[in-house]
Each structure stands twice: as C-alpha cells, then as structure tokens.
C-alpha cells in the first residue's frame, strides 16, 4: 500500500481536490464510520460527553459523535483539530456540529487540564510519525501530542486512536510515547494480518470513577470474553480452537448456564485481535 505520508506533508496532501475526493467517497465514508463506531464502543461513554477529535478532517468521524442517540448515551459535543485547511473547509460546507481548529497536533493540545471526557483520533496519528521540518523530530512531535492529550483529559478519561502503523517499530514508537506521557495503553487489532487490519491504541487516564488501568478497559469491551481470557484451564473440544469463536460461544453458554452474566455475541466475537502491554 502506498503511504501518502511518505510523499507529502498532510496539509499539502489533503488539498482541496483530495479533501473533496476523500469526503465524497462512499467507500471511505463507510470505513471511517465503522472505525469511529468501534472507537466509540471502546470509549464506552454512558452520557453526553465533551470529546476531542484529533485529525478530524472533514468531520466524517465527528458527525458520528454528534448523532449518537440519547438512549445510547449521546449526543456528544466535540471539538476537532486538523492541520489541513482544505479538510476543515469541507467540514464547514457540511455544517458539522463540532468546533473546528486549524492546528498541528504535533505542537500540543491547547486546552486546560481536565477539559475532555474522552478523545478519538481516526486515521491520523501515523501522520505524526513524520517530522515536518528539519527543526523537529517525529519523536518530539509524538511526545508533545501525547503529553498534551494526557493533560487535557479528565481523570478517568479515555482516548482511542485508530491509526495505520507502518510496521511493528512504529507501533512501539507510538505506544511508548503514550505510556511515557502517563497513559495506560493497550493495542487492539481487528483482523490482524489481513488487508483490512485495523489498529486501535486504547489509552486510559488513571483516577476517577472509571477503571483507569487497561485491564479495566478490556473488561469493559463488549466483545472480549473476560471469563475465559487469562485463567486458562478447561478442555478444548475437537474442531474448536481454544480462544476461537466456537470455543468462546461454548464457554459463554457454560457461564450463562451457571447464571453468570456474559456479553452478547457480536460480529466481533472471537475475532482475531491482539492486546499488547
């Protein structure tokens, strides 16, 4: 796959023509929407929240935050940062509800401490792994971004960044910058090893009423079967792979018979994923 960040800085790549093409492509709309929903489910917000959207672009991700129904804990109010004027221009035309800032996330996050309940970033953080000038390093940009993000979230807050890491090395570079900033961090992968692999960096800020450590987040996932995970043991039936979908569903049935509450099966049940750290 060709990586646009290898060729141009983001504000030049996302020019007027590209921003329009990006926003009107039904394929892209579909992918960005499903990733935003996935990120939202990882945030598990139960009431209307103030959310930062980093690299909000033309507002494809943000519009979804505005349209969460009251019975699902919405609608949320969001503030978006983006480095491309053209993308923000398209967002204006679309009359998105969030407030928009022309800003470079690699320069930090200009909000007072504890501002946001949560943050999302959909398909943007890989851009931060490039230095845009000789005066700065990718490492420095990531550090300023994650330090700023950490401070701007309230205690117990969460952030989910879906991004396209170039390789394992870049995954490590991004997540260790987040951890150094103070976050609890986990990497979650949907469909790893396939063409549609998606990487989500799930970040938690300790304190507050939400479980701040990453195990808390994993327990909160609507599709991770917490019952089987770390305890191990038990028999694996023939034709089932331990941890596979069939195995998980059988385990869930067992637990349900014992009167335990288990998460309903979803299309994510038993999907391949990896949680590091």
């Amino acid at each position: 796959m060709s990586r646009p960040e290898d060729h141009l800085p983001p504000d030049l790549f996302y020019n007027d023509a590209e921003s329009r093409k990006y926003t009107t492509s039904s394929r892209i709309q579909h992918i960005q929407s499903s990733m935003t929903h996935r990120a939202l489910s990882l945030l598990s917000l139960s009431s209307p929240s103030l959310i930062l959207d980093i690299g909000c672009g033309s507002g494809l991700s943000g519009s979804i935050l505005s349209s969460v129904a009251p019975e699902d804990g919405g609608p949320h109010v969001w503030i978006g940062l983006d480095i491309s004027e053209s993308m923000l221009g398209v967002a204006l035309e679309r009359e998105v509800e969030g407030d928009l800032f022309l800003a470079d996330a690699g320069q930090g996050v200009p909000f007072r401490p504890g501002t946001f309940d949560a943050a999302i970033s959909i398909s943007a953080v890989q851009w931060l792994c490039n230095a845009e000038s000789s005066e700065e390093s990718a490492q420095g940009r990531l550090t300023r971004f994650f330090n700023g993000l950490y401070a701007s979230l309230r205690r117990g807050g969460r952030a989910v960044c879906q991004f396209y890491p170039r390789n394992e090395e870049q995954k490590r570079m991004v997540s260790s910058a987040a951890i150094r900033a103070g976050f609890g961090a986990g990497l979650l992968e949907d469909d790893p090893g396939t063409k549609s692999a998606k990487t989500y960096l799930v970040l938690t800020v300790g304190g507050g009423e939400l479980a701040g450590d990453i195990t808390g987040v994993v327990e909160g996932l609507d599709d991770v079967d917490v019952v089987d995970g770390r305890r191990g043991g038990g028999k694996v039936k023939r034709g089932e792979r331990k941890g596979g979908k069939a195995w998980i569903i059988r385990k869930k049935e067992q637990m349900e018979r014992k009167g335990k509450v288990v998460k309903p099966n979803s299309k994510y049940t038993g999907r391949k994923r990896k949680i590091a750290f």
Partner: protein
Amino acid sequence: MKLLTLNFLTCARRACKSSADAFPLHPRDVELEIVEAEPNPSFLSNILPRLEWPALVTLCAELGLPGLPGEAPEVAELTAGEDGKGGKLAEDLHRLLLETTVKEGALVCGSCGHEYRVKEGIANFLLPSHLV
C-alpha cells in the same frame, strides 16, 4: 466557535504553559453569531462543574453580554422546576454556551500577547516553529 470552547481553550505556546494569564484568551474585534442547537440537558449537567465560572463571567463582560451570577449555579438547579428542565437558567446557559459562537475576529493571550485569528468560526492555532 462556541463560547463553551473558549472556557477551555488556552494559549498554545509552551512558554505560556505555566502562566496564569494564558487562560482565558481574550476576544478582540469579534463578530458573534447565534447558531441554533438542540438542547442537550444531560450534557449541560455534565459540563457545568467543569466550567471555570469566573472566566465565563469575564468573557461575558468583555463581549458586552448580559451579566451572569457571580457564583456558578449548582447542577441540581439545571433540573429544577415543575418540568425538571431547569427553566430560564438552563435555557440561558444553553444559549450562551452552545449557541453563541465567535464567527470572526481574534483571541489574544494575556501572557504573551499572541493573537489567534478566527475565520468563519475556525481558529488558527498553528504556531510558527520558533513559537512552539
């Protein structure tokens, strides 16, 4: 940009991080616009305790908007009244925080004097690299 957002926004310069004057930013030559929005009472209740009330009072004064009470209201007041909708207080806060927006003008840091331009509601927070 909603006035709500201005209650959280600070100067982006690192040199201003520890300065008490880098918040709130001060409006200069701004044009306001009312953009109607659906009331979102649970959001208001969520955000009210997080507001920096004195900064909001200052902002209203600087913009020439009708005065606010000197003390922040309690969250319970937002759900007071016969219908549980908080009456005029909830309406006023909704109007002020979520419907009153800065359309054009600038926001100025009280510490370093940097001026952030606002055009069509979008504030430019890109810093030249020597100011980062």
